[in-house]
């Protein structure tokens, strides 16, 4: 029996673009993270509404200066990630290296500022629910930042050593998607953690 055929031999192998299933996979991983943070934020407000004083007596509000300054490198890392992903699409090694390197440096600066800031906190996670929920949100997000920095670093090394092909370029492209989501998720959480108590902190 002879059948009609659809010849695909002319189609490109790999596509460094949003058409690749990997892009969807990373998007969905990002959705999982975002969902996790959304639940944490919902929890934060649920807890806030179930107590009379916020923060609970004995806790001081975290300082706002350093975390606000830390938003600057974080915001600048978006264009860096974008440069890397454009470089990946155009197969431009220089752009990829610049984007990935810059992204790493800015994320590192953000992380350093956050760790410095932690030393100024006067509430422990063991103290009460305010400490628990605040520290957990910060801890989860920091773990995400470190995780994605590790991913970026590995790609940086791969590109630097030249051991890359389409597949790794695709990796660079989707790495920026993850970074947009991980870094972008911080902005609402920043508002909740640092401004939330001021905005909704008055005793009921």
């Amino acid at each position: 029996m002879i059948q009609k055929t659809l010849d695909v031999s002319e189609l490109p192998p790999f596509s460094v673009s949003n058409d690749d299933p990997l892009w969807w996979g990373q998007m969905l991983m990002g959705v999982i993270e975002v969902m996790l943070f959304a639940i944490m934020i919902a929890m934060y407000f649920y807890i806030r509404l179930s107590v009379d004083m916020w923060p609970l007596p004995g806790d001081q509000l975290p300082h706002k200066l350093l975390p606000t300054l830390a938003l600057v490198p974080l915001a600048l890392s978006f264009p860096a990630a974008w440069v890397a992903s454009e470089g990946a699409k155009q197969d431009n090694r220089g752009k990829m290296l610049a984007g990935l390197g810059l992204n790493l440096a800015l994320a590192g600066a953000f992380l350093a500022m956050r760790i410095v800031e932690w030393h100024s906190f006067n509430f422990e996670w063991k103290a009460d629910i305010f400490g628990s929920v605040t520290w957990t949100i910060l801890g989860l997000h920091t773990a995400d930042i470190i995780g994605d920095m590790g991913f970026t670093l590995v790609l940086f090394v791969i590109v630097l050593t030249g051991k890359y092909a389409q597949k790794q370029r695709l990796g660079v492209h989707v790495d920026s998607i993850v970074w947009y989501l991980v870094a972008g998720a911080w902005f609402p959480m920043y508002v909740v953690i640092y401004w939330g108590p001021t905005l909704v902190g008055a005793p009921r």
Partner: protein
Amino acid sequence: MTPIIEAPGETVDPRAGTNEEHRKKLERAWSRPGRIFGFFTATTHTAIGMRYIITAFAFFLAGGIEALLMRTQLAFSNNHFLSADRYNQIFTTHGTTMMFLFAVPMMEGMAVYLVPLMLGTRNVAFPRLNAFGYYMFLFGGLLLYAGVLTNTGPDVGWFAYPPLSGPQYSPGKRVDIWAQMITFTEISALCVATELIATILKMRAPRMSLNRLPLYCWSMLIQSFMVIFAMPAVMVASTIMLLLDRTVATHFVNPAAGGDPLLYQHVFWFFGHPEVYIIFIPALGFVSSIVEAHTRRGVFGYPAMVLALAGTAFIGFGLWVHHMFATGLPQIGESFFTAASMMIAITSGIQIFCWLATIWTGRVRMHTPMYFVLGFIFIFVMGGLTGVMLASVPLDWQVHDTFFVVAHFHYVLIGGAVFPLFGAFHYWYPKMTGRMMNETLGKIEFWILFIGFNMTFFPMHILGLKGMTRRIYTYPPEMGWDNANALATVGAYIIAIGGILFIANVLSSRKTGAPAGRNPWDAGTLEWAADSPPPPYNFEYLPVAAGRYTMWAPAEARAVVTGMRDDRREVLVTSIMDAEPQHRLVLPGSSFWPFLTALLVGGGFVGTVFGFNWYYPTAVAAGVGLIGWFWPKAPRDLRP
């Protein structure tokens, strides 16, 4: 859009092995190394899917044995067969096993096996992630049973309400093991959900536009999205709230420091209710597949069926408070959930009506899978109707946490998921093994299971109304519960006989069953275009969809894809909506890294049961594993 190249140049005959050279090359590209070591490198979806199915079935048997132990204990009043402590461990393990180690992984395993075949592709989108997910599930299950066998089984119920499950009232490692087991299985579920969505959206056969997607694939697409939205909640509930409270003394559920036990219930049930639909929606896909093959027609009302699946999924996220009607929340707030819980019956109703319409106008063939579908309709409708009762706040106040609820959820879960699953086993067994299952034995199995099931669980409705609360290890003789309980226990043993017959059928048909050929049921979807059992590459030539039921389309309307390379693992990526070919994608080959990474991460997670600091080496180990996993290695990956 990439242009489609349609050239009648090459002629192929996908039916017979005319192109021996082509098949040999494909075989070489898609096979894993054969040694013991090679066993752990498998990444083809049929291999991983089969491992999921077998492992989940083993846990199903373990859960079934636990059920028999419980029924034996409850057979009559003041029984001393099990101690209170043992009983509490067993019912918790039973619930946990059935939900996390049987139902969800089984549905995932079936999907991992079937979805790529139904889509006409060669593997899932992320084969190594798939293997990793399987090993995480396996290790999670082993962790739980390691606990059970060392008398460290969880004993706080499968939803582990704090403060009972908190550090103060459950010292020891029992609850930690439970909570970490959840972490394992949720990671596994998320892996499968991610890869299934990517596969269904991007790797369908050319021209399989959304209106041609088999209903089973729709159900898995929708179920996977539910997993993505629901599983993070259980991560927050078990891994964050419960485990952190237990290991590093946070106060999420400690009322003394501002925490709130009800918050745990909200978060847990925000996962827990959708979980029921995560189990149930794939089963609806099984039923649709079986019904269309056994009525010789497409399911009536395709758009309505898709709507019903999607509606079930989204309304499913608005029901969780109906597990909390007795906690004293504002009644007006609770009533929103009554309304949503009742509305979800509409979507179930639409499906039942559409199947009835299909059977009404089809040419029904009464094979074993169809028996299970009919049994499903009978049992599930009853379970659905008791669900409507439970949606009512006042009725729920009476029957909540009683055997009425136990009866209800076994009607919807066994009736709604296990009966279709057994139907699916009988239906796809020829595809998976190349041989038919024994029909006579199959029908005997069905009747034994059906009678045993109703005998076990119907009396529980009455027991619940007569005041028997759930999770009690014994009851006094004056309560008048003895007869119904004895009946239920006998029923449970009858179910066990049905299960044994099923296993016997599976094992004996493996050798003695009639050879099945490619399409023994003359069904319409693409998995029947592959050999039985499918070779590691599934299809010699990828099929092109010629409608919703390509196998029913006239031969002249059908086509196959040519021009795919056969010397490496290539699959075709198509567009989301209309499945126009976009590019060829090279999938990774066999790899030991998923197993190794799972071993490292899993070992770390087991460590965290003993202390929070284990998370740090776990993170490092995971990093090492992932770097090894993603590090570019094979030179053929580098070539364009």
